[in-house]
């Protein structure tokens, strides 16, 4: 079988034996890929360039799974970026873990999303940099929703298509796929009130904490489960960006 070469980000590492790990990568050309990395935990050989770690990027060479096998084989990993700036602040670190948890939970193996790959790499780069961490997270949530085809409608009511009027009460329904106006919301059980001030902004420019909470609500509904890292990120965001009342 021909080895494949790709750019990749390390999303998850699971110990398989004393020296081997199962590695979940998000690759630019093939999306999620799960590989066995034999001997990686003790490797000082050039092919693994001294182990792998979560949230690093690199160039991967791997053999795709054969037949009914569920795992391919990692044959070479060359580290490119380690995003070391993430490790200086809890919000940056947990925010990055949340981003990779979203990708691992909401994309399928072998389903390529090159634009999402680059969005994730940019998000890790921004979180590791000197810019405020807060806005990076709702921006990435929105990028991911767009990439997987679940971007919510945030300018008009999803039912009657009328533009939301500034200052009037507005609701959000994950099941309906976006905002509900006051006239349409009584017909929906699953919904939550949204501050009308918030929807006058965008995930990139608005209150990071409020946008994060709203988009996480939507993502949780799509995934059908809570994300393990969400609660901690929400708490850190509130501390870093106290809500405007």
């Amino acid at each position, binding site marked *: 079988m021909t080895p494949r070469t790709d750019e990749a980000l390390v999303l998850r590492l699971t110990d398989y034996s004393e020296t081997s790990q199962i590695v979940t990568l998000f690759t630019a050309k093939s999306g999620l890929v799960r590989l066995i990395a034999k001997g990686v935990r003790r490797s000082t050989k050039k092919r693994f360039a001294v182990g792998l770690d979560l949230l690093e990027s690199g160039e991967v060479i791997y053999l795709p799974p054969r037949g009914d096998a569920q795992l391919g084989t990692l044959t070479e990993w060359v580290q490119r970026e380690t995003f070391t700036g993430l490790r200086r602040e*809890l919000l940056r*670190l947990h925010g990055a873990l949340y981003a990779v948890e979203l990708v691992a939970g909401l994309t399928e193996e072998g389903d390529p999303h090159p634009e999402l790959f680059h969005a994730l790499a940019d998000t890790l780069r921004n979180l590791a940099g000197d810019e405020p961490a807060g806005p990076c997270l709702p921006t990435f949530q929105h990028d991911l929703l767009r990439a997987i085809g679940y971007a919510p409608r945030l300018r008009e009511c999803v039912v009657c298509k009328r533009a939301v009027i500034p200052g009037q009460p507005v609701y959000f329904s994950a099941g309906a796929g976006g905002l509900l106006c006051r006239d349409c919301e009584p017909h929906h059980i699953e919904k939550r009130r949204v501050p009308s001030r918030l929807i006058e902004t965008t995930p990139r420019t608005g209150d990071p904490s409020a946008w994060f909470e709203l988009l996480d609500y939507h993502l949780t509904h799509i995934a059908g489960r809570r994300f393990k890292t969400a609660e901690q990120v929400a708490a850190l965001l509130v501390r870093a960006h106290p809500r405007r009342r």
Partner: protein
Amino acid sequence: MTESKLTGPLQRLMDELKKLPGIGARSAERVAFHLLKADREEALALAQAIMATKDEIRPCSRCYNLADGELCSICADPRRDQGQIIVVEQPKDLLALEATGVITGVYHVLMGHIAPLEGVEPGDLTIDLLLSRVKSGDVREVILATNPTLEGDTTALHIISLLADIGVTVTRLARGIAPGSQIEYANRAMLEEAFRGRRSPL
């Protein structure tokens, strides 16, 4: 390899041995036949050592290192500097550090690391006990010796945030290129850390 078809206690022994790390079917067979041929005393000494380990080893009540009494041998040693606590993830890390022979302080074993993606949270570790030790004793320095992995760093960052207001010196192990390795094979992170942490040779 063909699976052996032995039955009874010998097969059971081989099945149990195969569950051990690094022991495959072939090694399990070799060990089982060795024990079968060995003196009764030799074989029973192994069984008794396993039972004693399971019955008598417990966590040290102060640092969570492995102990066969209330305190581990390090915490009970009066020559140890109780003002310096080295924080490690697991007892195996403690053994590796002890083997260097340069540590005069005492330890605190966290019993793991924070792994948000695996659902391991600070409350699952012995961090609260570490804080109590630092607050109640004459601790001058806490040395964080968690692994230089993302999860080890997450754990260290969390502990740093908790110790920030206590007024104790917090340090971390140095990082960089391992002696005996070669720069051309070192990864970027190692080189970056080594460059940032460079120091005067004197």
